[in-house]
C-alpha cells in the first residue's frame, strides 16, 4: 500500500524555495509589501488572448489559401561550436502545402505568447501558439531585442504546424502596464509579409509552462531533492549559497512547478527477488504508485529513487520510460550506484555524493523533458537546430565527460541547463517537450525493428480505396495482407493478423511525432497454427480510427501508417500507407467534431456499438441525422444497428454507492435486452444499402463481415426474407471491386465465420 508521506507537499514546495526565487517571483507578480523602485519588474512569462470570433460562417466551398512562401531559417547562435548542426525540421504545414483544402472555419482564434526577455537565464526570444478552430495550430519563435522601454522587436526564425496562420515574418511586442501584473498586457504586431496584424495578450504567469512532479522512493531509500550549494568547496566563485531544490531548478528553467502530493514509498518487493530494478519493473511500479499515471500526454512526471538498477552499480539513473505509446513519464535515480563513490581524496566526500545524486535526479528529469545528452544534440530527429555541446556546464552533460573531468565540471557548474536546452524547454512546440507526448529522442517508429535479410513474408497495408483519402470524421479501417514469399510452406498463427498483441501499428502525421496505435482491447487467442503455402496470402482488417491513444487520424492532413508483425524471430514490416484526411466539409461538421471525437464514441465504433454509453449513442444518432451522405454516417449506423440485433447483456448498478464493493453487494444485476430488428433496420439500410460506399469506407473484408453477421442475426429472429436481402445486397455489385484477397481465398474457411471482431458476439 502506498504510504502518503507528504500530504503537505504543496506547502513544503513553497517553503523550500530560495529567497532569490521568492523575491523574483514576488517581483514579477508585484506581490512585495514594499516599493519596487528602482527595481525593474520583469515581464517575461506567459500571455494569452481570449478566444476571438473572426468571421461569420463562410459559404462552401471555401477557396483554398495560397501556400505561404517560407523564408529559410537562420541558424541559432550557439554558445558552443559543435559539428554538424542539424538543420531545422521543415515540418511545415501539412494542411496548406499538400494541396488539401485547409480547414478555414476560424470559429475562434486563441493565441499564446511566451515572452523571454528578463528574469532567470533570459533567451531574448518570443514565441507563440496560434490555434484556430479545431484543426489548425501554428507555433512561431522569434529572436527579439529591446528597442525601447518594454518594447521588443525581432524576426521570426521558426514556424511549425499550420503556418498559413502566420504568414508574417516579424514581430514587435510592446508591454503595456508593465509595473502591475494584474493589468499587464502585451500588444503584438505581426508584420513583414502579408497583412499586418495586431493582437493584445493578457499577462498570465511569470512561467512559460506548468509542470507537476511526484517523488517516490523504494523502501529503504531516501529521495534526494535538494543540495546546499556551498557545502562543497569546488564550485564557481559566484555561485549563490542556497539550499537548492529540484523544484527551484525547474522554476528557473521557466516552469511553474507543483507537486502532486502523492509522494510515497514503493515496496522493495516490486523489484523482484534480486532487489534490483529492471525497466519493466519500474514501469509497473509507475503505473501502480504514481498518483497521476495515465495513458496520455500531460505536464506531469514520476521520479523514483531506488538503490540499484539490474545493470548494477555502473548505472546512476535512467529515464526508463521509452515503453508503450506515452514515453518520458518516468525516471529513476539509483543512489547506491557509482554516484555514491566520491573520488579518493575529495575534500568533502559527503557533499560530493549529495551533489552527484542531486545532479543525477535533475539529469534524468531533463530526459523526461526530451532533452538529450549534451554530446548527442545533433543525433536523432531534430526538433530545433541544437548543436552538440560536449563541454557544456549543463545538467545534461556528464561531469566526468568534459575536459578536466568532474573537478573541472563542478568548478564551473551553475546548476542550470544550457541556453539551447532552455530555448527548447520554454519555446519548442509543446508536444515535443511535454511528458507522454513525442516519443523519446527521435520520432522514427521502426528504429528497433529487426527485419530479416532474406524475409519469408511480405506484409501489405492498404485502405480499401485509392487514393486513401478519408473524409473528415470518417473512422479509419485498414486491411493487412500477409503473403508467404519464400519457396517453402510457412507455419503461422491462425490469428496472426488479429492478434493486436503482436501487431505494431505506427501512425505519423506529417511534421508531427510518431504515434503508436493502441487498441481499446487486447485479445487472447488459443494458439492455433496453420500452414501458409508459397505465394499464399492471408488478410484481415483493423479499425484504427480510435484507441487508447485517442483519435490518431482525426486532424486534417497527411499521415503515413506502417505495420509490423513479429513472426518467430522475423520482424515483417509493411509498406508505408499514405492516408489523407480531408478538411471539414462545412462549419457544422467542424462544430460536430468536438462532440464526436471523444473516447466513448471511439469505443462504441471500435466494439461495433454499445448499450452502455448512452451519450455515445446520442452522438452517433446525430451523426446519422446530420450527415447522412457522409461516410461517418455509415460507421455510426453500423454501431447503432449491431447492438440492436443481438441479445445484449448489460450490467446495471444502483446509484449512490461510493465505497468499493462487489457489483452484487452494490445491487448490480444483469439485464438482458432482446434483439429488435425493426429498430435496427433503418441503420442497416443506411449502412449497407449502397454497396460501393459501404465497401469503400468499411473495407471489403468488414463489409462482408457485417453483411454475414447482420444477416445471420436477422435470420435468428425469423425474418428470412430480410436476412437474405441484407446478405445479398453486396453480392453482385460491390465485392468484386475490392482487390483485397478474401480470407476464403487464403484459407478456404467457411464464409459463415469470416471474421470475429473483439466485442462482437453472434
Amino acid at each position, binding site marked *: 500500500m502506498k504510504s502518503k508521506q507528504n500530504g503537505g507537499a504543496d506547502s513544503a514546495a513553497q517553503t523550500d524555495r530560495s529567497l532569490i526565487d521568492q523575491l523574483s517571483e514576488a517581483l514579477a507578480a508585484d506581490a512585495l509589501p514594499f516599493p519596487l523602485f528602482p527595481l525593474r519588474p520583469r515581464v517575461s512569462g506567459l500571455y494569452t488572448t481570449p478566444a476571438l470570433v473572426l468571421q461569420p460562417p463562410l459559404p462552401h466551398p471555401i477557396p483554398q489559401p495560397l501556400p505561404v512562401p517560407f523564408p529559410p531559417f537562420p541558424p541559432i547562435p550557439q554558445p558552443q561550436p559543435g559539428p554538424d548542426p542539424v538543420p531545422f525540421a521543415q515540418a511545415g504545414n501539412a494542411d496548406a502545402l499538400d494541396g488539401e483544402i485547409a480547414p478555414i472555419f476560424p470559429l475562434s482564434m486563441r493565441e499564446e505568447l511566451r515572452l523571454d526577455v528578463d528574469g532567470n537565464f533570459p533567451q531574448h526570444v518570443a514565441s507563440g501558439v496560434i490555434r484556430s478552430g479545431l484543426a489548425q495550430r501554428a507555433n512561431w519563435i522569434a529572436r527579439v531585442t529591446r528597442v525601447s522601454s518594454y518594447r521588443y522587436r525581432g524576426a521570426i526564425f521558426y514556424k511549425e504546424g499550420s503556418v498559413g496562420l502566420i504568414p508574417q515574418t516579424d514581430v514587435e511586442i510592446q508591454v503595456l502596464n508593465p509595473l502591475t501584473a494584474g493589468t499587464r498586457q502585451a500588444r503584438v504586431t505581426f508584420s513583414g509579409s502579408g497583412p499586418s496584424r495586431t493582437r493584445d495578450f493578457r499577462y498570465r504567469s511569470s512561467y512559460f509552462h506548468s509542470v507537476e512532479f511526484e517523488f517516490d522512493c523504494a523502501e529503504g531509500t531516501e529521495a534526494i531533492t535538494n543540495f546546499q550549494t556551498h557545502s562543497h568547496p569546488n564550485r564557481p566563485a559566484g555561485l549563490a549559497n542556497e539550499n537548492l531544490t529540484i523544484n527551484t531548478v525547474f522554476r528557473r528553467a521557466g516552469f511553474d512547478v507543483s507537486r502532486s502530493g502523492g509522494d510515497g514509498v514503493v515496496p522493495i518487493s516490486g523489484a523482484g527477488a534480486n532487489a534490483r530494478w529492471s525497466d519493466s519493473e519500474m514501469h509497473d511500479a509507475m503505473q501502480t504508485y504514481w498518483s497521476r499515471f495515465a495513458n496520455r500526454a500531460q505536464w506531469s512526471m514520476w521520479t523514483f529513487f531506488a538503490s540499484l538498477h539490474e545493470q548494477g552499480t*555502473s548505472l546512476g539513473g535512467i529515464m526508463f520510460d521509452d515503453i508503450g505509446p506515452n514515453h518520458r513519464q518516468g525516471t529513476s535515480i539509483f543512489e547506491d550506484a557509482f*554516484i555514491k*563513490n566520491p573520488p579518493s581524496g575529495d575534500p568533502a566526500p559527503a557533499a560530493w555524493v549529495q551533489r552527484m545524486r542531486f545532479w543525477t535526479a535533475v539529469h534524468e528529469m531533463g530526459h523526461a523533458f526530451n532533452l538529450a545528452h549534451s554530446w548527442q544534440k545533433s543525433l536523432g530527429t531534430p526538433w530545433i537546430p541544437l548543436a552538440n555541446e560536449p563541454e557544456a556546464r549543463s545538467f545534461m552533460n556528464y561531469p566526468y565527460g568534459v575536459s578536466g573531468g568532474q573537478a573541472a565540471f563542478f568548478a564551473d557548474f551553475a546548476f542550470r541547463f544550457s541556453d539551447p536546452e532552455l530555448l527548447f524547454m520554454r519555446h519548442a512546440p509543446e508536444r515535443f517537450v511535454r511528458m507522454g507526448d513525442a516519443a523519446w529522442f527521435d520520432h522514427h517508429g521502426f528504429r528497433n525493428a529487426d527485419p530479416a535479410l532474406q524475409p519469408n513474408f511480405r506484409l501489405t497495408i492498404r485502405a480499401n480505396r485509392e487514393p486513401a483519402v478519408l473524409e473528415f470524421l470518417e473512422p479509419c479501417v485498414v486491411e493487412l495482407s500477409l503473403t508467404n514469399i519464400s519457396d517453402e510452406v510457412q507455419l503461422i498463427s491462425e490469428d496472426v493478423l488479429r492478434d493486436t498483441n503482436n501487431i505494431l501499428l505506427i501512425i505519423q502525421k506529417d511534421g508531427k511525432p510518431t504515434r503508436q496505435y493502441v487498441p481499446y482491447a487486447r485479445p487472447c487467442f488459443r494458439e492455433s497454427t496453420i500452414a501458409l503455402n508459397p505465394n499464399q496470402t492471408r488478410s484481415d482488417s483493423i479499425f484504427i480510427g480510435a484507441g487508447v491513444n485517442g483519435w490518431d487520424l482525426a486532424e486534417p492532413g497527411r499521415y503515413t501508417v506502417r505495420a509490423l508483425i513479429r513472426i518467430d524471430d522475423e520482424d515483417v514490416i509493411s509498406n508505408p500507407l499514405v492516408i489523407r484526411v480531408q478538411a471539414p466539409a462545412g462549419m457544422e461538421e467542424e462544430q460536430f467534431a468536438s462532440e464526436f471525437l471523444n473516447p466513448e464514441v471511439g469505443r462504441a465504433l471500435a466494439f461495433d456499438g454499445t448499450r452502455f454509453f448512452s451519450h455515445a449513442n446520442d452522438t452517433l444518432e446525430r451523426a446519422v441525422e446530420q450527415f447522412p451522405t457522409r461516410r461517418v454516417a455509415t460507421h455510426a449506423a453500423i454501431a447503432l444497428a449491431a447492438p440492436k440485433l443481438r441479445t445484449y447483456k448489460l450490467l446495471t448498478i444502483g446509484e449512490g454507492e461510493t465505497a468499493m464493493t462487489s457489483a452484487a453487494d452494490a445491487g448490480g444485476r444483469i439485464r438482458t435486452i432482446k434483439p429488435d430488428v425493426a429498430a435496427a433496420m433503418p441503420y442497416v439500410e443506411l449502412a449497407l444499402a449502397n454497396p460501393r460506399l459501404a465497401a469503400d469506407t468499411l473495407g471489403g473484408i468488414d463489409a462482408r463481415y457485417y453483411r454475414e453477421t447482420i444477416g445471420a442475426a436477422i435470420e435468428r429472429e425469423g425474418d428470412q426474407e430480410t436476412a437474405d436481402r441484407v446478405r445479398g445486397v453486396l453480392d453482385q455489385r460491390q465485392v468484386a471491386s475490392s482487390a483485397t484477397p478474401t480470407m476464403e481465398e487464403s484459407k478456404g474457411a467457411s464464409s459463415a465465420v469470416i471474421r470475429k471482431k473483439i466485442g462482437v458476439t453472434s
Partner: protein
Amino acid sequence: MATISVVLKHGFAGENVVVTVDGREVFQRQVRTRMQIDRADACEIPVDAGTHRVGVRIETADGSRTIEANAEAGRMIVVSLVDGVPQVNVADENAGDA
C-alpha cells in the same frame, strides 16, 4: 567478492555480443544502444582478486570481431562500436552512465 563491469556503450544496433572472462562465457545477448543512458547493456562479473582477461565478441551478419583487454578486479571495461569497429577502454568505475 570483487567484480569486473563490462559496459556496452555507443554504436550497437542489434548485434549479438558475447563476453568471456578468462575464456569462460559470462554474457551473451543481442544489444542496441539506448540514447538516454548512452549504453546498450552492461553486466557485472564476480571475479577473484587479480588481473583477468576479458574478451568481447561482436557478431553481425557480416561476421564477428573480438576485442580483448586485461582488467583488474574492480575495474570497468567499456566497449563501443565506432563505424562498426569495436573499441575498448578500461575505465575508472566512477565513470558510469545516467
